[in-house]
């Protein structure tokens, strides 16, 4: 389990929000330049893994740097060793899997996911989430692996990969293992990845016929983190009966969560606007939203129902359902 040696997650979030929202200058003791570190730039995965084996807890993996570098500038993270994996060419790819799903290299950028016709065809909800993530400069450089490993509950892809039942391939110098996304996110900024491991790939299962996917994000300004985010993958059978559905909720708990009551309310029933409304009402069971500068817990709870309803309706239509 690792949280990468960050300062307490709550302090990270509080400081970032204060600086971002209020533009407050660095307090005494907060710096705008990172602390010293030793820098490595391996060119192969094996080289990177050897470095992680050697330095373990004191090292941090650097990909796009869009989450890590701001934290280092504020000195909320001060790793002694940085393993920059951006010069490893074999980690950036989008290919079709043998079973019809997708294999996405961990260093694939948000821009690639946004624009790839393969992603749009096989996994449109991922492309939809990518297109609203940050801004052009962020999408040019940020990676899906970095986004998932950083495990900020407000990160875009967390609810999406959960709803997709995706799997992650984690490699270390001792071998590799597959981690189901449901087992990956443990807490705020905390994943089940060991310090000696690297996420090398995201595996997305194949999309079944008559499936609709949708991602809805509630936010204030373009590029902001979501206040509430919902990802839905819905498969319809004969007569608009819901054959399968998964609803991933983001930003309403320390990790992404499935809206299990909503899923139960829909499964096996004929989908209609009325059923979607009823199912959305129960999306809030089991969530633990926080109050921060952007929204209160009460608002997030109420908006979970609204955004879930919107995402369910969009997915239903895309699955070929008729209203």
């Amino acid at each position, binding site marked *: 389990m690792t949280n990468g040696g960050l300062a307490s997650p709550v302090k990270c979030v509080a400081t970032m929000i204060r600086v*971002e929202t209020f533009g407050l200058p660095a307090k005494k003791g907060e710096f705008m330049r990172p602390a010293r570190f030793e*820098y490595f730039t391996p060119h192969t995965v094996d080289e990177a893994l050897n470095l992680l084996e050697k330095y373990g807890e004191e090292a941090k993996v650097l990909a796009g740097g869009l989450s890590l570098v*701001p934290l280092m500038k504020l000195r909320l993270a001060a790793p002694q060793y940085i393993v*920059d994996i951006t010069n490893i060419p074999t980690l950036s790819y989008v290919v079709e899997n043998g079973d019809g799903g997708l294999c996405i290299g961990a260093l694939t950028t948000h821009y690639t996911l946004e624009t790839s016709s393969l992603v749009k065809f096989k996994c449109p909800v991922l492309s939809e989430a990518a297109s609203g993530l940050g801004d*052009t*400069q962020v999408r*040019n450089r940020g990676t899906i692996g970095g986004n998932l490993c950083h495990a900020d509950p407000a990160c875009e892809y967390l609810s999406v990969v959960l709803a997709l039942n995706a799997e992650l391939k984690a490699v270390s110098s001792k071998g590799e293992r597959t981690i189901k996304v449901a087992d990956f996110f443990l807490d705020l900024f905390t994943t089940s990845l060991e310090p000696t491991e690297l996420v090398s790939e995201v595996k997305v299962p194949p999309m079944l016929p008559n499936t609709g996917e949708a991602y809805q994000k509630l936010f204030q300004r373009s590029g902001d983190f979501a206040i509430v985010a919902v990802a839905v993958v819905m498969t319809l059978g004969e007569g608009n009966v819901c054959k399968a559905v998964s609803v991933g909720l983001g930003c309403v708990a320390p990790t992404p969560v499935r809206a299990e009551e909503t899923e139960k309310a829909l499964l096996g029933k004929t989908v209609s606007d009325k059923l979607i409304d009823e199912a959305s009402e129960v999306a809030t069971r089991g969530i633990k939203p926080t109050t921060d500068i952007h929204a209160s817990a009460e608002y997030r709870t109420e908006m979970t129902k609204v955004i879930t309803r919107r995402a369910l309706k969009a997915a239903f239509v895309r699955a070929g359902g008729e209203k």
Partner: protein
Amino acid sequence: MERTITQERTIALTVNGVTYKATVEPRMLLVDLIRDELGLTGTHIGCVTGKCGACTILLNGVSIKSCLVFAVQADGADIVTIEGIADGDKLHPIQEAFKENHALQCGYCTPGMVISAYQLLKRNPDPTEEEIKKGISGNLCRCTGYVNIVKAIKDAAKK
């Protein structure tokens, strides 16, 4: 515990067509290298968290925020800053359009805006107003209210 930290690395990079060699600490940010070491102060620093986009440059043809990249990561890279956008004394059409449409007041965000506009028009030569707004959403402006910036980019697209 004995630990040696490699304090400095020598890197080589091309900026606006000129190749530079520099010996830097790993923690030096790319924007600091460009401004302080190379003296190209057209690229600006506006915030701490990488939100404002005033530091936007092209790295290997793609727009990024240079305050979020370490200089050592730009080893071997091809960089274009605002100083490299014009063709000698002749302004780039984007710069002309900004001038004609009064798309700047204090000018602090402008270098980053021009680079973002350049990236947008390279990928989408005829953007709609919505696409322009999305394309510059990574660049904050405190003066203009963005209206003239959007007009300027629409104008530049025609040139």
